[in-house]
């Protein structure tokens, strides 16, 4: 605080714009509502009343244009991989991807013999958080989402990145 100490009234918070943006973004990451397999059921459970994602500022959006986070929930087949990529490209920046469950992360049980399964969604889109499990419990997904919030918070959108 230093210079600004006691210069303002009590209900004024002083922060750097960079941090403020990070904080604002991290507390309302709307996620893209689409599921690919059984993980989607757990994702639905996470969003439903018992676990209530709304309390950490997340709500499902049905359009990629309105979404900030894509939760890849389920087995990504090669046929679907092209579509997942297209959906990711349709999302507006800044955008984040959570790979939910073994299938999305590495192909899961289809690792060896699934001729039609993409062996990890990170082969087509960049992934920020991996949530392990088959399928992960809602608590695990929430843990992943909180990790993502930490990551978003640590972003400094206005700071020039030094290569």
């Amino acid at each position, binding site marked *: 605080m230093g210079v600004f100490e006691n210069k303002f009234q009590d209900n004024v918070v002083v922060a750097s714009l960079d941090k403020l943006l990070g904080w604002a973004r991290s507390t309302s990451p709307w996620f893209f509502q689409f599921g690919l397999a059984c993980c989607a059921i757990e994702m639905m459970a996470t969003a439903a009343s018992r676990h209530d994602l709304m309390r950490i500022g997340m709500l499902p959006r049905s359009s990629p244009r309105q979404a900030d986070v894509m939760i890849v929930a389920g087995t990504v087949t*090669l*046929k679907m*991989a092209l579509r997942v990529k297209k959906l990711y490209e349709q999302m507006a920046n800044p955008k984040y991807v959570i790979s939910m469950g073994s299938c999305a992360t590495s192909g899961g049980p289809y690792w*060896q013999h699934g*001729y*039609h399964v993409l*062996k990890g969604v990170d*082969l087509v889109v960049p992934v920020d958080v991996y949530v392990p499990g088959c399928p992960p419990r809602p608590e695990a997904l929430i843990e992943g989402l909180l990790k993502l919030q930490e990551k978003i918070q640590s972003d400094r959108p206005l700071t020039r990145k030094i290569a």
Partner: protein
Amino acid sequence: MTDNLEQLIKEAVEKALEGDMDAINNIEDRVTRSKAKAALVKAKREAAKEKPEVSSDESDSTQDSAKIKTSNENIAELIIQQFPEDINKDLSSEGHIQIHPKNWMAIAKYLRDDPACLFDSLQCITGVDLGEESDLEVRYNLHSMTHLHAIEVRITCSRNNAKVPSVESIWRIGDWFERETYDMYGIEFDGHRDLSRILLPEDWEGWPLRKDYDVQETYHGIVVPKVKEGWE
């Protein structure tokens, strides 16, 4: 004391066998009551064991009459009457009917419309790869709602020229079944109105459920990793 109890149990079981369950239910001590019930079950089981020995002669005669032909055999005979050339008797069994592909369309029409067959429901079409050196096979499961009988029809075709007449125009459901079989085994169904892949993308290479299928290395630039060493 124990002698008394055993006597009590014995009497109760005897009464129960005659149909008076109260004799057991009225025993006050729980342990004794459950012992009595166990004894009753044992007695009944022994009684049941004795019965078939008595009626063993009868069961033999019923077994003879139980050798009723299966619906597969019955229908095979009907088909032979109509299409004597088109059925492979040697390969047919009580579980299925082996048919040559040539007249399959006409046979299918007969199976659906003949009053003795009336197979109005085609329940499943599936393919089978009989081995890398061997043929492919299509299997049809038919069921009749009227007669409540069911048969399995099998048709083999060569691996390199896998063609079977389509029955999609006879049973409408055959449309998607045949497309799936085509998708997985590359068996072409002659006469199908829209024979295209149903599950896999249009530009997929190969027939995944054939034994000699090789997984493609890339799909639209996406690398499909092969099994790595140490992963097996």
